[in-house]
């Protein structure tokens, strides 16, 4: 005999659910890392208006921004392997986590490219010109002068993006990745006590989001202090 909500179970479930945190962290870290690298590439393609690649990038970014990530997960996990099968490449049996990492990486790349693009254009032209005038190449100017300043400008938006990514990882369970959300549901269905698991999730997500936000605000302050 049980009741709908048992506070003791919250404590009991907590370690079980939190033990899946590394999976969530892995998704976030890979998504942000891949998103930054690929996003920078897309941003550059778009800013330099590289032929064909630019058009492709525009299409790609608006597709990713215009569809829910769950749709993208399904396309990558279910659809993409079927497409590859047509040309004789079989990846249907790959580990799910790879599909998830690819999806979140690609998804973040689109968002990051927009963040990076607007951050770069927020750096005054004179900075680039000055870099050229002292003999820096395009890439050196970007790396040494433009990106560090763009990074600072983008920092608050970047922080929001990280928190968003963290929250959206909960969708990975749809494919059967046993992350924290998956664990909560799994416990819920085997014990017939779902509510407690969701309470644990809420606590963890709120706590980590708050920690992330605090970290970003703190880091931002330190960056700015250096310059003042």
């Amino acid at each position, binding site marked *: 005999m049980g009741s709908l909500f048992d506070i003791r179970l919250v404590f009991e479930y907590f370690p079980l659910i939190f033990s899946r945190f590394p999976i969530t962290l892995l998704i976030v870290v890979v998504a942000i890392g891949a998103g930054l690298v690929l996003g920078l590439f897309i941003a550059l393609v778009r800013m330099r208006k590289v032929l064909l690649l630019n058009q492709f990038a525009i299409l790609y970014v608006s597709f990713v921004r215009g569809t829910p990530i769950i749709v993208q997960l399904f396309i990558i996990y279910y659809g993409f392997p079927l497409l590859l099968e047509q040309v004789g490449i079989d990846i249907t049996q790959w580990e799910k986590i790879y599909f998830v990492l690819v999806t979140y990486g690609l998804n973040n790349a689109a968002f990051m490219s927009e963040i990076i693009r607007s951050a770069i254009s927020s750096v005054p032209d004179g900075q680039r010109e000055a870099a050229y*005038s*002292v*003999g*820096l*190449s395009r890439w*050196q100017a970007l790396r040494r002068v433009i990106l560090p*300043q763009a990074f600072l400008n983008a920092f608050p938006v970047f922080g929001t993006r990280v928190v968003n990514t963290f929250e959206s990882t909960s969708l990975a369970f749809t494919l059967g990745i046993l992350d924290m959300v998956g664990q909560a549901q799994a416990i819920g269905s085997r014990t017939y006590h779902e509510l407690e698991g969701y309470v644990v999730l809420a606590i963890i997500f709120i706590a980590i989001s708050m920690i992330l936000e605090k970290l970003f605000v703190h880091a931002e302050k330190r960056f700015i202090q250096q*310059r*003042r």
Partner: protein
Amino acid sequence: MIELKNVHKAFGKNTVLKGINLKVNKGEVVVILGPSGSGKTTLLRCINFLESADDGELIIGDTKVDFKNATSKEILAVRRRTAMVFQNYNLFNNMNAIENVMEGLVTGRKMPIGRAREIAKQALDKVGLKDKYEAYPLQLSGGQQQRVGIARAIALNPDVILFDEPTSALDPELVGEVLSVMQAVAKEGITMIVVTHEMSFAMDIAQHIIFMADGNIVEEGSPKDIFTNPKEKRTKQFLERILPRWNYSI
């Protein structure tokens, strides 16, 4: 020695440079005068390819570059033999004063950091900022920022320093410190091409004056010739407007 031959430049339908020919000797200080919109700044910016001229030729030392089909390698080579001081200083906001000065040496020219730091210190000392090595641009006054800008240029030991209206953005009381630094630089025998409205600098420091109007060089000569005995009507008009008091002394 720097030579420009038949430089043309248009922004859309607006032709800004209509075939400029210019020769600057080593160690010479050249001042370009002219009403706004005459193409002075564009000409200056064409020299280090911040603008790409449509046609013409640039000879700098033993390097010869055709504007029409300059490769990025050539452009970089030209930029590494020139330096520029900007109207709005354009110091790298993410670097402090000494890093600003070192950047071109370390990143551009791959100089060891220790040596670059020594050169940067000397340059900053020369412009009177011995106590501001670690200061970030936002912590400096306009005059101080521009002096860092000049230090950044001289540290590169370029064939020529291009000055693009270096005092125009400054409060009047700060103009003097920048001009005196420029004067000191000129005395060291560094080739300078200066676009400015500071007539005292043009008169006292320049060895050669170029007067531009409507994308052409209208008249050139020594400061004495230009200021006391201008031949062209447009030069006279310009000088009358900008220097009314000189009317009396002529």
